[in-house]
């Protein structure tokens, strides 16, 4: 069985997630090759072949061009699986490959099960097993679901030259992350507000608990999108990655993108009225309660 790993490269650098794909491929028992649209210096450390196309000529991410380059590598390698990260790069590119080859695609894989691939669904509350019915398939792997492999080995580098047409979507560059109002990465205690707190007026109640605990206020995405708190307080894949000694999640369901940002916390307390909420998976203590009743009571007890 052969796997072609599609490396992820942004702003001149190979992303760490590429090494997670290697672990996944190893667990499948697949022989690995990779395709990098980047530069020679960023070629991943691994054995086997790495197909290299220069990003300078292909654009860091132009979907039409990247599709053609990866298809060219697929043509050479003839892999059983084409594997990408389930990231802004992967979920944009993967369906283009699947459509071009008319093959099955499984997204957001979190595990390998007896008869296929395991993917999260229903906001991470449930799982599905999905089995491609085509001999070749495109897979995207959830970031963090598989530990990154140790970089080792030296691949044979084979160049792919493509002068592809760049019509359709034109990539115009990057906009850097906004300036931070707070640096949550340094906080020892973070108390996060999720949508379960109900309304903006309740933010001060959560902020008060954060203050009493000597920590910072954090938030899940819907709370930020609704404008209840500043974006710099968002925890998760598209917010900040944090690793406090104590993380208190108030009315946060525990969607995979939120967990990805906080699962390195030493000790996690979750307050949720739903005993089955996925946040329970990572919580050291799950308090099954109405957050707006429990939090003021906890704050008061700590003030004593």
């Amino acid at each position: 069985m052969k796997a072609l790993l599609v490396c992820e490269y942004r702003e001149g650098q190979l992303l760490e997630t590429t090494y997670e794909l290697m672990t996944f491929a190893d667990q499948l028992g697949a022989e690995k090759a990779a395709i990098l649209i980047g530069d020679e210096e960023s070629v991943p450390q691994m054995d086997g072949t790495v197909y290299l196309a220069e990003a300078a000529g292909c654009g860091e991410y132009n979907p039409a061009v990247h599709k053609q380059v990866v298809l060219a590598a697929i043509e050479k390698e003839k892999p059983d699986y084409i594997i990408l990260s389930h990231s802004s790069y992967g979920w944009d590119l993967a369906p283009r490959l699947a459509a071009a080859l008319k093959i099955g695609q499984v997204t957001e894989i979190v595990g390998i099960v007896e008869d296929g691939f395991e993917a999260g669904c229903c906001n991470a509350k449930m799982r599905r097993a999905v089995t491609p019915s085509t001999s070749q398939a495109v897979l995207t792997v959830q970031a963090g679901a598989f530990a990154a492999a140790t970089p080792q080995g030296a691949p044979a580098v084979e160049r792919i030259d493509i002068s592809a047409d760049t019509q359709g979507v034109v990539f115009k560059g990057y906009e850097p992350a906004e300036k931070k109002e707070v640096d949550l990465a340094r906080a020892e205690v973070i108390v996060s507000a999720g949508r379960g707190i109900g309304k903006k007026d309740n933010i001060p109640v959560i902020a008060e608990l954060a203050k009493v605990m000597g920590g910072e206020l954090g938030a899940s995405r819907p709370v930020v999108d609704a404008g209840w708190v500043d974006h710099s307080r968002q925890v998760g894949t598209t917010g900040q990655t944090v690793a406090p000694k104590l993380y208190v999640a108030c009315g946060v369901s525990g969607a995979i993108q939120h967990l990805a940002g906080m699962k390195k916390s030493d000790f996690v307390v979750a307050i949720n009225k739903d005993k089955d909420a996925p946040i329970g998976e990572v919580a050291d203590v799950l308090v099954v309660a109405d957050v707006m009743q429990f939090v003021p009571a906890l704050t008061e007890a700590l003030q004593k």
Partner: protein
Amino acid sequence: MKLLVCIKQVPDMESRFRPAADGLWFDESDLAWRMNEYDEYAVEQAVQLKEQLGKEPELTVLSIGPDRVVEALKKALAMGGDRAVHIQDNAAHLKDPWQIASMISRYAGDKGFDLIFTGMQSQDRGSAQVGVLVAEMLRIASATTLVDFNYADGLIQGKRELEGGVKGLVELQLPALVTCQLGLNTPRYPTLPNIMKAKRKPIETIAADELLSEGALAPATKFYAPERKAGGMVLEGDLSGMVEKLVGVLKEKTAVLR
């Protein structure tokens, strides 16, 4: 200009999910249904574009599923859609993204839509495939995960959300498809007059069989609850008891509150 928005109806995510008898998807009884959150942003963006262009564009909303999905279509009409298409399919939940996309593209194929909006993913299945597949099948440009959208003179300027707060700036020429991410805009609540008006807007029904010619390429074989990690403490019951226990645990197990 012709606009199409593809929407899905999904259960409230706070529901308790149980596998259905066939073990392939959830049991639908006792679930409350709503429009997929990501699709609300898609509908809103299309309506805003229509307003920007002086109501000239015609906005069609489309949904595949059993009769209940008409409720989601009505909401989209009340938000500002002009007409709806219901692809009647009682077995939509068993179709894979490839089949769903092929039905949409087959419908859209000869209608000449200039711009198609979808959510970046559904909340229940989360495959994030359908939008791009539709675009590829129709051979039009597409961009995913938009958190910013601007249109002028046949050109879309968008911002794609990447990881860690970084955004990718993209430009697309019409015809195109974009998938919408949370936070793209603020979806409006339909007003009562608009809900009343929506009742008179046309809803066309098409049988799924008329559009489906593709088999599944990646079918689901099982639906189940994740294995629960043992270990975490669960506190339940009376409020002051739980507070007291938690304070005790925090003092004992963390250095923070000592």
